[in-house]
Every structure is written in structure tokens, then in C-alpha cells.
């Protein structure tokens, strides 16, 4: 039964992708219907997998020669991420019915969305590092295809290729880790790696650990690879929601969480993870303070929140990080889709041109505020509980300076989130934008996500129970939701954090008149340049291209020169033989 469900969760979206690829763009209604049907079916089968969560390997197919076994292990962690991918993915698809109405090439759009969802499910369910990498690469391909979906627009094309190259460069870390694992243990199984960390040579284990950190940082857009995610905002907004909440960026955090028991004793690893999370959270929060593009501001906030999760893993808060991942997936999907509704209606992403849109779109305003409150970490929304849990873990288990940094981020988050909400929905209307309330499909997705934002924290108890029951290598203390509530409410740290959040809100409130009149521009250069990392990216690109054009000069097209190459190579080979003899 479990095996069937696992195959369904991956198979349904992939078959859907194949079918949608073959549908004609002349029949958009059929395409919308099929896409919604397949994504909901995938979502339902992922939910059906919930009671069957197990630490056993349910599918095990030998692939022959050096490819190990294709295995799937639907434990609590995998099932949770599968559900996030499939359910939030299906909400993004439902949202797309309105958002993508009248767009061309829907077959390509939906096929890749479904392929993406299936690949993400495969990635988290896979019990073999090779096949994890296999699915990892497919998600990279899908994100590339979807980010540059509007491929007549050069910015979208550039954003797509940037995401592809950066995540692939990081992926080399995962590849190296998988290869080292196989070379030393003769198996790609995750469980074999975690079981044998004691007997592995320390330097190799360290290579795997830092290779995986590299891969995770690239995939989750963490420092120093954070530059691709803001540029990925050229994608249609449902895709941004999909990438930010359901699929792509969760993969990196998942990778760290999954292998935490294997690497926790590698010297310096946990500290490096903490630092990566801290730096990412800090610099992107800073960038979000002055961002003027609504989607970019949200994108920075994603990196910042992912920083929280990475930080949590670094300080040993495995459960806190996954709990925040769940909360974040729900409220960030809500924020993105609501932002999508605004952008769809207003026809611009520039917050300086918006303002006072709340009166015309009250529903969207209300749900957006809900998402914003969760992002700020205000009670009693899901973001509050998970963020507080992370901060508490940080205070009790991590270094104090990192905790102070994360606390600062919490204040900045409150500031930029309020700023965003204010600029879009309140204040004066700076331009007469003719907006309209959203369509029914959009409202369904937004409504469901809003309910989720209110309620998913109630799942903390069952969630920890499931993780504790089905994870063999992680030590998760089972606690009920009530215990969690008590723990957070009776910790003084919570009130400290809330005070910082209030401070952030207050600072914005006092300076709200200054917002959106262009004073940000002074700081904006820093954030647009990603603190110099954009410059770095450009340097790497231009050096590569310069090397290429320098080499082009060697292809002269002259025969004499070509013969010279042959004789030169002969001399080189002879010299090598002399040297090696």
C-alpha cells in the first residue's frame, strides 16, 4: 500500500506532465482542468501517505553496475515535505487558473509545474543519494524552465540561466558527496552513510559534510549563493510561490536536516551552518528594508527566513527548523499568491506606484495582512510559534552572538514586512491604478492558505510525534502542542523577541511618511548589488567569456598553424614520456 502511494505521489504529477505536454494550447480550459485535477490528485495521494509514514524502505529496485539501488523511504520528514510540495503546489496550480488566463504556451507551463512537484516529492522520498541527486537536477531543470517561462523577455532568460548555473555549481557538492559515499561504502543509501559515519575516514566525511552544505546553500539561495533568487522573480508569480514555498528552496534545508545526524560531529560543520544561516538572514533582511519591487522584497524575506531554518539546524534545532519550514511554506505561499493577485491587478511590481490598494481589494488585503503578521512572527499565527522555537533553541544551544544577530533579523523582518504592507495597501494612492478584486480560483487558494496560516501550528504535536516515531537517526523529543505552547509562553526569551519585533514595527510606524519617497535609493545600491556578490557573479561570467574569446583566437583557420598544433602536441607528449620514465 505504502509503495503504491509513493509511486502515485511521484507518478501522478509526472504522468500529468506528460499528458499536459501533449495538450493543445488551443484548448486552455482543458489544460487548466487537467492541471488542477492532476495536482489535486497528487496532493490527495500525498495526504493519504501521512498515516503510512514509516522508517522502512518501501521500494527497492537494483539499478545494476555502479548505480546502486533506487529506494524510497517515506519517513515523517519525507512525508511532510512531500505534502508541502504537493498540497501547496496544487494550490499554486489552482491559483494559476486565474493568474495565467489567456497566457500562451500553457502546456509548457503546467507540464513543468507538475514535473517540478513530482521531482520534489521524489527528492525528499528518495533513500538513495544518487537518486536524490537525480531528482535534485530535475528540479533545477524545472526551475530553469519556469523562471524563464516568459522567454521573449531577456531578463527572464537571464534570471533562469543564473538560477540554473548557480544551483548546479552547488549541486557539484552533492555529487561529490554521493560519489564519496559510494566509493567508501559501496552503497548510496542514506541510512548506510549515517550508520557508518564512525568508520569513515574523517577527512572524507568532512568533504561530504561541506559538499552538502555547499549544495544546500546554493539550492536554498543562502549566502554566498543568494543572488539567484531575487532574479528568479521574473517568473510568473505562482511559480515564485511554488519555488519559494513548496519545492525548490526547501530542498536545501531538507538536505541539511536529513544528514544532520551524520555530520553533527564533523568539526566546524554545525558552526558553519549556523554562520551561513545567520549571514544569509542578516544581509537579505537588510536588502528587504529598501527593496521597491514587491516580489523582490518577498524574495529577500524568503532567503532571510530560510536563514532561520539553516541557523536552527546549525544550533541543533532540527525539529524547530522543520516546523518553521512548514509554517513558512504556508504563509509565504499565501504572501506570494496575494502579491500575485495585486500584481496581476495592478500590472506593476513597483511598490512606489502602489498605495491604498486595500480599499479596492479588501480580500487580498486581509489575507496579505495575515501572512505578513505570520512573517513578522506575531502571535498566534504559525510563524510566531516556529520562529520563537528557533530563537529559543538558538539562545539555549547556540552561540550568543548568533542569537543576537537573529533577534536583530526578527526586528528587521517586522520593519520591512510592515513597510511592504503599508506601501501596497495603505497610505496614499500614489498612482491611479485600476485594480479589481480577484477571481474565484485565486480566492480559493488564498482562503485555504489563510486558514493554514491560522492553524498549522496546532499540528506541532502530531508532527513531532510522527518525526519521533519514524526517524531512526534524529533525536526528536516528542511534545504535544499544549506543551509547546506552554514552553513558548513561559519562556522570557519569547517576550524579548516580541519586544524587538515591536521595536521594528514602531520604528517603521514613526518613519512611515518617509517611506516610498525615494530616500531608500541611497541604500538600494547595496542591496541591488547584493553586497558585492552581483559584482562577483559578473566577474565570473565575464572571465569565462573572456577566456573563451581568447581561445577563439587559436582557431585561426590557417592550415599551417593547424599543423603546428600537431607538431607541438607531439613534442609535449614526448616531453611527458621523458618526464614520466
Amino acid at each position, binding site marked *: 500500500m505504502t509503495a503504491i502511494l509513493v509511486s502515485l505521489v511521484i507518478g501522478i504529477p509526472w504522468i500529468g506532465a506528460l499528458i499536459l505536454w501533449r495538450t493543445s494550447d488551443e484548448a486552455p480550459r482543458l489544460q487548466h482542468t487537467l492541471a488542477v485535477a492532476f495536482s489535486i490528485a497528487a496532493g490527495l495521494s500525498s495526504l493519504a501517505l501521512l498515516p503510512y509514514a514509516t522508517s522502512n524502505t518501501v521500494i527497492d529496485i537494483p539499478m545494476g553496475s555502479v548505480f546502486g539501488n533506487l529506494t524510497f523511504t517515506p519517513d515523517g520528514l519525507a512525508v511532510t515535505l512531500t505534502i508541502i510540495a504537493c498540497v501547496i503546489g496544487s494550490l499554486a496550480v489552482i491559483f494559476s487558473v486565474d493568474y495565467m488566463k489567456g497566457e500562451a504556451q500553457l502546456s509548457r507551463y503546467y507540464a513543468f509545474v507538475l514535473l517540478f512537484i513530482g521531482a520534489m516529492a521524489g527528492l525528499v522520498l528518495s533513500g538513495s543519494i544518487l537518486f536524490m541527486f537525480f531528482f535534485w537536477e530535475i528540479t533545477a531543470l524545472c526551475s530553469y524552465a519556469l523562471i524563464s517561462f516568459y522567454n521573449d523577455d531577456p531578463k527572464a532568460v537571464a534570471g533562469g540561466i543564473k538560477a540554473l548555473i548557480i544551483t548546479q555549481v552547488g549541486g557539484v557538492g552533492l555529487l*561529490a558527496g554521493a560519489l564519496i559515499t*559510494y*566509493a567508501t561504502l559501496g552503497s548510496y543509501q542514506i541510512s548506510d552513510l549515517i550508520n557508518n559515519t564512525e568508520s569513515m575516514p574523517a577527512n572524507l566525511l568532512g568533504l561530504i559534510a561541506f559538499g552538502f552544505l555547499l549544495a544546500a546553500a546554493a539550492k536554498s539561495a543562502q549566502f554566498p549563493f543568494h543572488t539567484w533568487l531575487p532574479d528568479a522573480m521574473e517568473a510568473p508569480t505562482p511559480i515564485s510561490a511554488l519555488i519559494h514555498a513548496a519545492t525548490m528552496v526547501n530542498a536545501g534545508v531538507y538536505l541539511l536536516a536529513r544528514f544532520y545526524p551524520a555530520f553533527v560531529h564533523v568539526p566546524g560543520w554545525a558552526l558553519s551552518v549556523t554562520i551561513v544561516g545567520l549571514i544569509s538572514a542578516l544581509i537579505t533582511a537588510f536588502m528587504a528594508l529598501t527593496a521597491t519591487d514587491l516580489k523582490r522584497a518577498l524574495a529577500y524575506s524568503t532567503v532571510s527566513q530560510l536563514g532561520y531554518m539553516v541557523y536552527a539546524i546549525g544550533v541543533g534545532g532540527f525539529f524547530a527548523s522543520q516546523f518553521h519550514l512548514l509554517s513558512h511554506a504556508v504563509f509565504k505561499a499565501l504572501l506570494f499568491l496575494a502579491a500575485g493577485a495585486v500584481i496581476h491587478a495592478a500590472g506593476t511590481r513597483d511598490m512606489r506606484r502602489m498605495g491604498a490598494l486595500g480599499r479596492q481589494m479588501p480580500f487580498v488585503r486581509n489575507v496579505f495582512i495575515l501572512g505578513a503578521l505570520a512573517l513578522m512572527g506575531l502571535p498566534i499565527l504559525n510563524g510566531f510559534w516556529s520562529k520563537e522555537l528557533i530563537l529559543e533553541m538558538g539562545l539555549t544551544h547556540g552561540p550568543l552572538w548568533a542569537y543576537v544577530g537573529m533577534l536583530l533579523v526578527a526586528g528587521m523582518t517586522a520593519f520591512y514586512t510592515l513597510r511592504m504592507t503599508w506601501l501596497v495597501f495603505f497610505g496614499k494612492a500614489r498612482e491611479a491604478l485600476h485594480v479589481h478584486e480577484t477571481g474565484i480560483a485565486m480566492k480559493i487558494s488564498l482562503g485555504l492558505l489563510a486558514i493554514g496560516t491560522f492553524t498549522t501550528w496546532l499540528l506541532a504535536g502530531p508532527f513531532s510525534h510522527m518525526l519521533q516515531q519514524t526517524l531512526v537517526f534524529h533525536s526528536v523529543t516528542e511534545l504535544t502542542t499544549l506543551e509547546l505552547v506552554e514552553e513558548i509562553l513561559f519562556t522570557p526569551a519569547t517576550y524579548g523577541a516580541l519586544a524587538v519585533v515591536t521595536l521594528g514595527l514602531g520604528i517603521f510606524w514613526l518613519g512611515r511618511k518617509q517611506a516610498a519617497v525615494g530616500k531608500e535609493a541611497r541604500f538600494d545600491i547595496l542591496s541591488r548589488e547584493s553586497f558585492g556578490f552581483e559584482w562577483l557573479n559578473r566577474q565570473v561570467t565575464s572571465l569565462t567569456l573572456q577566456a573563451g574569446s581568447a581561445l577563439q583566437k587559436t582557431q585561426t583557420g590557417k592550415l599551417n598553424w593547424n599543423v603546428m598544433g600537431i607538431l607541438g602536441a*607531439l613534442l609535449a607528449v614526448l616531453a611527458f614520456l621523458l618526464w614520466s620514465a
Partner: protein
Amino acid sequence: MNLTIFPWMIAVPLGASPLVYLAGRLFRPSWVRGLALFALLLSWIPFVLIFTGQGMQLSFNVETIGLQADGISLLLAAVTLALGTVVVLFSGPYMAGEVGEEKYYAMLLAMIGFMIGLGCAKDLFNFWMWFEAMAVSSYLLVAFYREVPASLEAGVKYLVQSAVGSVFVLLGIALVLGNTGSLDMDEIRSATGTLPQSGLALAGAFFVIGFGVKVALVPLHTWLPDAHSQAPSGISAMLSGVVIEAGLIAMLRALSTLGILSVSWGMLFLGFGTLNMLFGNLMALQQTQVKRMLAYSSLSHIGYMLLGIGFALSDGQQAGAQGAAFHLFNHMLMKGLAFLAAGAFMFALFHQNQVQRSLEVKDLAGAARKYPLAALTFSIALLALGGLPPLAGFMSKWQIFVAGFQSGNGWLMGLVIFAALNSVLSLAYYAPVVNMMYRQKMGDAIEQGKSIPLAMNISLVLLALSIVVIGLWPSLMNWLTEPAGQAILSAFGQ
């Protein structure tokens, strides 16, 4: 049973070659396509019988000419026959009505026969004869459009550089003969143990350079981008998918007979492999012509194969040899498909409109709307070349990478990382082509394009399906790659 059936693999295409030519000349030119296809399908029969028949004799001697089939020969035969058949199918509409159509098929069949023969030769000099015959037939095919200046230029460079390579091969043979007094590969191998090594090492260097021209080792590669981009597309597919690989197999055969310095050759291959990957990718990144870009990407893929063989020879990694054999097979599928798809576009966009020019990447804008199948198969080929799963190229690269890591040697592991980064770099030129094809706005060339004939579509689909199936089920080709890998290792005494 003591049947010797495998020489028929060679005899059928070689025998059919003049018949096809005569049929085209004496009767109707349109017959030649069917006849050529029939001849190739016939050549599959002995190939299949080798694998199904028990105790089949795998060596054959007439006077002094000996043939012997081992894992490497069968790999080369499989690759040649597979792509040859698809290319002949594809060429039906592509070459229809061209002046000299019968010569095209006659030469193609001859080239196929010579290549299979090359894999089976057991005497060093006969081996050179097969090699030279293959080369001559390929010169004529490269310069097939003799009225086009660029293709003549490519043909001339290809010929002169190959001739220089051939001189080196002969010098190597002379050295071997002078040192051992024999040309039979097995005899040489058993004799070399007692001989001074310097002469043989020099012979090895000559073999590396001589065959290296055909393999397109950097910096011997300068003819390749010209020849592969200017030949008729079916021939580009054969050149990139089979001929350079045949050169690689020839080089391995010749070197292995020397029986010395295996580790040095392995290191040499690693060096050339590194150079090929980097150079091929950086150059491909600069190209705007589709076929020239594909030609440069062949350099980098040869680099991967060299890497696998290097791991096998320098560290005795069977996975390296097998991975190289697997990548050789997959590269035939991927690059064959890529060139054929590019050819299908050239046919529909240019030839049908009596335009004579090269295919630029930007000509493909919006291709998917009008040619969904060709665009999809081309994308599959490109993404597979870039090493994305679930396509074949990923799996064979992976096998090579495993070999590097199993060595446990830091340098070799570093090379694997370098190769993986090169794969990422290659995506920077493959992905934009795919992107271009799936644009919403169609370019002028696409707007005016004619339809792609069924025979072409069938050949594209056949290759694309194989790429996907092998990608999902990589051990499917073990029957072919495992003996080939073992044969490479044992030939070098590892």
C-alpha cells in the same frame, strides 16, 4: 558449432556499397536510399547472431588478413550500425535529389563497413588500412557539397591534417616492426616484454598523435569544428557520433599492443581529457552557429571518455573503462540526435526554400510551435549532452565519475569535480538553445519553414526514445559496455 558469422557485418555494407552506386547510376537514383537501408538492416543479422548464438567463432583468417571480434569490436560495431541505420533513414528525404546522391550512400556504406572492420583487425598494418580507408571515405563525405566553398575548405583541412596523422601512425608501425619483427598484435604484445622500451615509447607517442588527430585531442582538433559543421547533417552525425570514437578505439588498440607504460598513457589521457573538456566548452560557449557549437561540444565529450579511460589505465578502475564505453555509446545517441535534429531544421527552413546557409541559434526562435517534435527531440539531445537526468548522458558521466572517486586519489577526485563543473558550464550554451526553441515569438526563418518529412521524424524519435530509456534504466546497455570495458582493461594488462 563452428560458424564464423561476424565478418558478414563488414562484408555486407562493403559489398553493398558498389552495388548501391551502380544501382543509382544505371537505374533510378531514388532506389539507392531503400537499397542502402536494406543493406544496413541486413548487417544487423550477423550482429544479433553473435549475441544469441552459442560458441560462435570470433576469429577469422584469410591468408595473412586476420579478423577478430572482442568487446571493443562489438561496441564499435553496435555504435556504427545503430547510428548508420538511423542516418540512412534520415538521409532519405535530406539527400533526395542532390547531385551525387548515389555516391553519398555508397561512401556512407563503405565508411560503415571500414569502421566495423577497423574494430576487428588483428594485424597492425591491416588495422592501418582499415583506418585509412575509413578516412578517405570520410574526406569525400565532408566535402560532399563541393560547390560550397566552406565545405571544400573544411574538406581540405580535414584531409591534410588526417594525412599528417596517418604519417605518424605509419611511423609508429615502422618502429614497432623494426623493434619486434612482427605486426600481429598478439605477437607484438608477447614480444615486447623483453625489448628496450624507448623505441616502443616513441612508437606509442606517434600512435597518440597519429590517431589523436582523428580523435580531435586538443590541440590536434583544429579540423573538427570545420569538418563537422560543414558536412551534410547526416555525415556530421556520423563523424561526431562514430568516427571520432572509432579513432579513439583505434588509438587504444594500437597503444595496448605495445604492452608498456599503461599508467603513463592513462595520465596522458587524463591530461588530454582535461584540456578537451575545458577547451571544447569555452569554445562552444562562443558559438552562434548551431552545428559549430555541437562540433565543439564533441571535443568536451571526447574529454569525458578520455577521463574514463584515464581512470581505467592509471588506476585500474573497471568502472572507468566501462563508463567510457557507455559514454561512447550514449554520445553516439545524443550527438547523433543533436546533429540530425539540427539537420532536420536546416532541411525544413533552408533546403526546402532553396536557401544555402548555416543554422544560427537565433534562427530557432519559436521552433517548438511549428515543429514540436523536432524541438522536443533536439532539447532532449541537448539536455542529455549537458548531463541532466533522467537522460542517458547523466548516467554514463556518473559511471566515469564513480571510477574517479573509487581510486581514492585526491587528484583524480579533483578531476571529477572539474569535469562536473564543466558539465555545468556546458549547460550555459545548451540551455539557451532549448530556451530559444520554446519562445513564443517565431523568427522569420521558422515562419517560412516547410514541413519535416516523416522519415526524419522517425529517426529523431528513435534516438530520443533510446536516450530516455537508457537514462531511466542505465544497466540496459551492460551487455555491450561491460565486455568492452573488460576488453580495454585486459588489453592493457590491467
